[in-house]
């Protein structure tokens, strides 16, 4: 009996800790909060500016690079089949590093380990093009990051970051995106922060950008010191966000206002 009470107690603590988490049936992609014109832009591949990067990524895919003079296509073949679903399961665990890596880091790992080429800079045109091309192959597939014993601690760290108040405004991600989604912040609708379309084209940026660029934007917005590109804290947060959006459909490259 006593054991049962302990169990009930533990369950209620766990429930109250994440009381703000959005129920699965109420989850919405940022797409649903956009205007009609922006949605039309994303839906039409010849109007979606993200496709310019996809096109460029397609040509980079078969371009030989680095000391090994090897192209992505030499190992991975046709991306349309081999890269299907890859973006939907990143960040994924890298055994050599002992931690999860995101899609951009995976591409750069391939460059340094297999192509003997220098890694591409964060947010560089080539890296965005390659990640957009790879992510495009997962369009329409459900997000499914692997959570097991190895990745669980990183997921927990990401969740802690999401719920931790930070910056001069002393805000946590969850206060906007769990508790107040659908309401307005300075005229803009607050979305639920599901990373379904990255890398995506933001009209505000007039460019494609990665999820980390978006996360750093948010951190600057709450007047916190943003983590560097590729920082473990950002990758953990990415992992948590992808887990939080599990089952939702990849729409990369998306368009956002």
């Amino acid at each position, binding site marked *: 009996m006593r054991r049962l009470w302990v169990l009930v107690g533990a369950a209620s603590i766990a429930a109250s800790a994440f009381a703000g988490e959005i129920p699965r049936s109420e989850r919405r992609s940022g797409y649903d909060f956009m205007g009609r014109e922006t949605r039309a832009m994303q839906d039409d591949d010849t109007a979606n*500016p993200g496709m*310019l990067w996809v096109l*460029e990524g397609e040509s980079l895919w078969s371009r030989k690079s680095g000391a090994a003079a090897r192209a992505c296509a030499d190992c991975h073949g046709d991306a349309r089949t081999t890269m299907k679903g890859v973006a939907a399961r990143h960040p994924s665990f890298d055994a050599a590093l002992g931690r999860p890596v995101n899609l951009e880091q995976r591409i750069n790992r391939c460059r340094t380990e297999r192509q003997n080429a220098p890694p591409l800079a964060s947010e560089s045109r080539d890296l965005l093009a390659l990640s957009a091309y790879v992510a495009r192959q997962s369009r329409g597939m459900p997000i499914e990051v692997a959570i097991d014993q190895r990745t669980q601690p990183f997921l927990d760290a990401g969740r802690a970051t999401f719920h931790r108040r930070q910056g001069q405004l002393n805000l946590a991600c969850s206060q906007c995106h769990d508790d107040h989604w659908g309401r307005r912040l300075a005229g803009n609708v607050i979305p639920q922060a599901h990373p379904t379309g990255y890398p995506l084209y933001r009209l505000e940026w*007039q*460019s494609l950008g990665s999820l980390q660029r978006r996360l750093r934007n948010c951190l600057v917005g709450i007047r916190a010191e943003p983590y560097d590109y590729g920082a473990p804290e950002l990758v953990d947060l990415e992992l948590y966000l992808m887990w939080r959006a599990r089952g939702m459909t990849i729409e990369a490259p998306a368009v956002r206002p």
Partner: protein
Amino acid sequence: MASALINVPARARRGEVIEIKTLISHAMETGYRRSQLGARIPRDIIRLFVCTYNGTEVFRAELHPAIAANPFIVFSTVATESGTLAFHWTGDNGFSVTESARITVE
């Protein structure tokens, strides 16, 4: 690296009004911005877009610094005969891109 996306219907009936969509990769740097050191970033924009249909000009647009990056231009024309639609963008720093698309008119 310039790349362009063109959307022209592959076939059309004679006399039909067809919609043509073009999207080109370009930074459209206004020339009014300054770098963090205060130096002016020189203007680099597309100045002119021309579309010809079997050699006849059917659409022309002048572009200016207020136009956003990666200009998306949509216009319509009347499908008169089968042939080639040629698209030509020219701009600062010798920017010049030509693309073409085939259309069959029945």
